[in-house]
């Protein structure tokens, strides 16, 4: 017997070894494939302290010496940092929190030096040779004259605040977009709904004499070639703003806004293809989970409506890929049709596209679980895993190395990886599938609870004596049922239970205690479930403790009509600590002709906080004296 048990105990173990072997042989191909190093670790700095997303990182020939530097703007430290190779070459303090960074080849001078554009608030700070060069500021927002008039009226006290609010609400409703009122007006309307009059008055006083000047903030910038798509040729700047505008800015003409396109939502990211003076297309990720297309300066009617917020977008000559919050990358063809999807194992944080001499249309994806995945369109080519969530990826030429991947992670570390020249990225469906189906969880054996020796011995006994055990159990069950039934019958016939029934009527009672003490309220209900009325009943409340004082301990009930619930209330007070034995109160119901109670209900007093009672000793006498007599009577009733 014991032998049998031990073999089955080993059972799962045996199975495990068998399957892991199989797994190992299946997994080795994928492992071997992954061991082929695509990425060489060039540089790692765990304490680089970079808190920047992809749009704040750029690889740029800052000084025009054909040695590309890594430029990072960090919003948390308000700094611009510059790496040459593995050394931090320069650090600049910024005046405002940077939002986005890009480089633009502005002028036609012989030495090709790009300008670094750092967007912050409504400004773009432009640096050349790492020196402050120019500051571009977005124009003030325009507001309607009517709105200005309202504020002037307020300042000159021609209008009351209520009137002004009403007028502003009307103005707001006239405009279908609704966004055309200044923040100041919106704030006043919102205050009129919630805040007090004083607040509003001080708000209006603050605004007095100050014209409505509001600016909007920049959300994203990107560069686009003017006529030739070559490295170093002249470029224009595309700027997306919070109020849903896309500006085309020409760096040569004093950073003048050449053209403006209205977007239905604030843009999150821009991806541009083509050239401004030939033909161009800008794909705009909207904050409202939609993707808009701008072709040659016009917003097209073709809008992609995504279900969840998009995180990143990649445009190539063949397709457009949008990575979304639901762990999915959607691929669209140029006509805007959904072609296929990639479902990722964890949440996407960033996406970067690249093409090398040998491979085009590659996509790298950074995930929350620290994986960097590389796809050729939908085919998975490689997976590297870092220890923490990826924050940003940037691919490009760094120093003299053409294919460099810059990775920053959530703790601020910097990783620079180089695509191995010998790497054979042969994307195939088979290897992609192999990589995709790697599930490390499959190698964790099932956690099967162990059974003890006692259990095994008991099963042995059960096997031998099952029939006796069963019979014993059935007999005991019958006995239990019998004694329960007997106890029940006894309780209802001797008035100990809450239910009483006879041929003509039946009563149910229920008692409960309310309050936290020392004062309580005792309530009991009586309900006659029979067909006839009952007359001349007496309810008595009894207790053992001397510390309990009842306002009323006896109730005469002249009639109990059928199906009506009667409730009876009395106050009681607990004057001294009561032992657990004495906490019980009994409500006894008896008929006039007999002194044996027909039914009873028991309630327990909760524990009373002693201190609280001591504070109010004078109330003890309130109804203490009057009911002692009744008390004894009640006891007598029970005794009888």
């Amino acid at each position, binding site marked *: 017997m014991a032998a049998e048990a031990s073999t089955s105990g080993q059972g799962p173990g045996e199975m495990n070894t068998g399957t892991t072997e199989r797994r190992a042989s299946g997994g080795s191909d994928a492992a071997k494939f992954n061991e082929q190093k695509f990425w060489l670790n060039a540089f790692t700095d765990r304490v680089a302290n970079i808190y920047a997303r992809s749009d704040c990182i750029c690889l740029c020939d800052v000084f025009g010496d054909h040695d590309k530097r890594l430029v990072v703007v960090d919003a948390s430290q308000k700094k611009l940092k510059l790496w040459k190779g593995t050394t931090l070459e320069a650090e600049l303090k910024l005046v405002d929190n940077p939002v986005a960074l890009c480089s633009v080849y502005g002028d036609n001078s012989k030495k090709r030096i790009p300008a670094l554009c750092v967007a912050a608030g409504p400004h773009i700070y432009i640096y050349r040779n790492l020196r402050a060069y120019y500051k571009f500021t977005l124009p003030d927002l325009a507001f309607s004259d009517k709105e200005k008039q309202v504020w002037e009226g307020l300042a000159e006290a021609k209008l009351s605040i209520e009137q002004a609010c009403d007028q502003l609400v009307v103005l707001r409703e006239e405009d279908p977009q*609704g966004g055309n009122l200044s923040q100041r007006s919106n704030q006043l309307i919102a205050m009129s709904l919630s805040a007090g009059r004083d607040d509003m008055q001080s708000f209006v006083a603050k605004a007095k004499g100050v014209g409505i000047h509001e600016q909007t903030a920049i959300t994203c910038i990107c560069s686009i070639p003017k006529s030739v798509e070559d490295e170093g040729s002249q470029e224009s700047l595309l700027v997306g703003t919070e109020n849903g505008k896309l500006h085309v800015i020409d760096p040569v003409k004093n950073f003048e806004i050449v053209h403006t396109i209205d977007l239905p939502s604030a843009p999150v990211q821009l991806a541009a293809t083509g050239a401004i003076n030939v033909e161009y297309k800008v794909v705009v990720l909207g904050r409202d989970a939609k993707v808009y297309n701008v072709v040659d300066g016009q917003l097209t009617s073709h809008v992609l409506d995504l279900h969840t917020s998009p995180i990143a977008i990649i445009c190539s000559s063949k397709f457009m890929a949008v990575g979304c919050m639901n762990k999915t990358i959607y691929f669209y063809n140029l006509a805007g049709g959904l072609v296929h999807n990639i479902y990722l194992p964890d949440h996407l944080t960033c996406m970067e596209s690249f093409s090398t001499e040998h491979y085009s249309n590659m996509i790298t994806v950074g995930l929350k679980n620290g994986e960097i995945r590389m796809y050729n369109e939908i085919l998975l080519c490689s997976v590297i895993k870092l220890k923490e969530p990826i924050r940003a990826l940037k691919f490009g030429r760094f120093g003299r190395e053409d294919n460099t991947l810059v990775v920053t992670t959530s703790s601020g570390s910097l990783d620079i990886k180089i695509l191995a020249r010998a790497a054979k990225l042969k994307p195939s469906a088979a290897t992609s599938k192999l990589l995709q189906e790697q599930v490390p969880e499959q190698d964790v054996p099932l956690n099967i609870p162990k059974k003890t020796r006692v259990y095994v011995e008991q*099963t042995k006994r059960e096997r031998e004596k099952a029939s006796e055990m069963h019979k014993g159990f059935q007999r005991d069950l019958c006995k239990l049922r019998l004694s329960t039934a007997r106890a029940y019958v006894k309780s209802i016939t001797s008035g100990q239970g809450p239910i009483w029934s006879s041929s003509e009527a039946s009563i149910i009672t229920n008692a409960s205690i309310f309050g936290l003490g020392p004062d309580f309220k005792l309530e009991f209900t009586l309900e006659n479930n029979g067909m006839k009325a009952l007359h001349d009943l007496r309810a008595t409340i009894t207790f053992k403790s001397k510390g309990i004082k009842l306002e009323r301990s006896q109730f005469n009930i002249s009639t109990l009509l059928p199906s009506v619930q009667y409730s009876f209330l009395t106050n009681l007070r607990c004057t001294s600590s009561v032992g657990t034995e004495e906490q019980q109160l009994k409500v006894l119901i008896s008929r006039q002709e007999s002194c044996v109670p027909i039914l009873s209900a028991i309630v327990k007093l909760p524990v009373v906080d002693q201190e609280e009672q001591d504070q109010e000793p004078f109330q003890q006498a309130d109804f203490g004296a009057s009911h002692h007599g009744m008390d004894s009577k009640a006891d007598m009733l029970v005794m009888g």
Partner: protein
Amino acid sequence: MTSKAGPSCYSGDNSWERSYKHVRDNHKIHLEYTNREFETCLQHIEEVLDANEGLAEYPLYVKALIRRRQGKIQESLQLFQKATALNPSNVLNLKQVGRSLMLLGKYRSSMEVLTEAKRMNPDDWEVWHDEGICNAKARNYEKAVECFKKANAIHPHDTTYLALGGVFSAMNKHKKAVKVYLDGLKASPGNPELLMSCGLAYLRSDENYKAFEMLLKALSIDPKNPSTILATCSMIQEHADLDTALLKYRVAAVVNPSSSQLWNNVGMCFYGKQKYIASIACLKRALAIDPFDWIVNYNLGLVHLSTGQHASAFHFMSSSINLKPEYPSSYMYLAVILSKLEDIENAKAAYNKALSLKSNYLFELNYAITLYSFDMLEESLAHFRRFEELFRDQSRDAGADPDILEQRRVLANAHGIDLD
């Protein structure tokens, strides 16, 4: 500093009357939200709200979204309403108010808000989708179907296909659900959720092969989804490939260890491999997770019957019957257990109950065997004859279980009947 033109550079132009501070951090907040850095995002939002007397539309909106993700729906609803007060014409806010109301189970008020949103923007698929979900939750299935179809006509989405299929499944129209899922898969090939739902719908409409194909596809794209694993493995298990099933269950056990169904299936895998102690251990874990699942009790009854622990088997089988009284096989097994416990009267009653629910040759055969072993030869013979009738009818085309044939031969010999 070379200042080429324009205003003086970097002179600290801090006149905040040129205010943009209420929108300055919106982009950052948005990025933090989409990258799921919710804690930092909330901190950030609080700073912005402090600086703007709590009146900044977009930060309020994102805060509400995060609060809702954290399950604080009531708070999120209030925040959305605040944001709506700042800009009543923003349809996004209205839609979210509708969705929060829906999550609170207030379907009627949710639909009112959605109708308002529809008035402002009639061609928004999301409004129709949400209205459909409200209707589905309120069990107005016909109306829900209509809404989902409208949403899909405006802009097809995977979620709408999933919801529409779910409604058809709830209406027990599994064929229609399959069709919807297939349409969805045409629009978005390889969506693991759609594949899984489609597989399950096939399973419910008894197209096992197609179901299996779909589930395998779903598993190859998303190998860690516990529901897909359970559905696929239960099919693998039926085809007696227990090792493969167990291997896949390992993944599910890591992802979702407290699933009663999972441990039930694992337990039955071990039962199939005749590792009874492991099987009992797994089944008892399943029972601890979900004590009122009749099938776990039923399986425990079976395993204990196989290990000869008849007294325990009786308890599990009878609690299974208490939980699901209309399953005939439970009574048959209970009868077998009772006969092992030498309680022939109750065993007979259980057999009769099983037969009154469903006439089955296996029940008759077992009945005959039990009666024979208690020396009730006449009754046994009667039931054996009935078994023969049913057995000849049913097993002509399908190959019979060799075990049954053996028992049949033995009993026939005992009764002195010539089978041929």
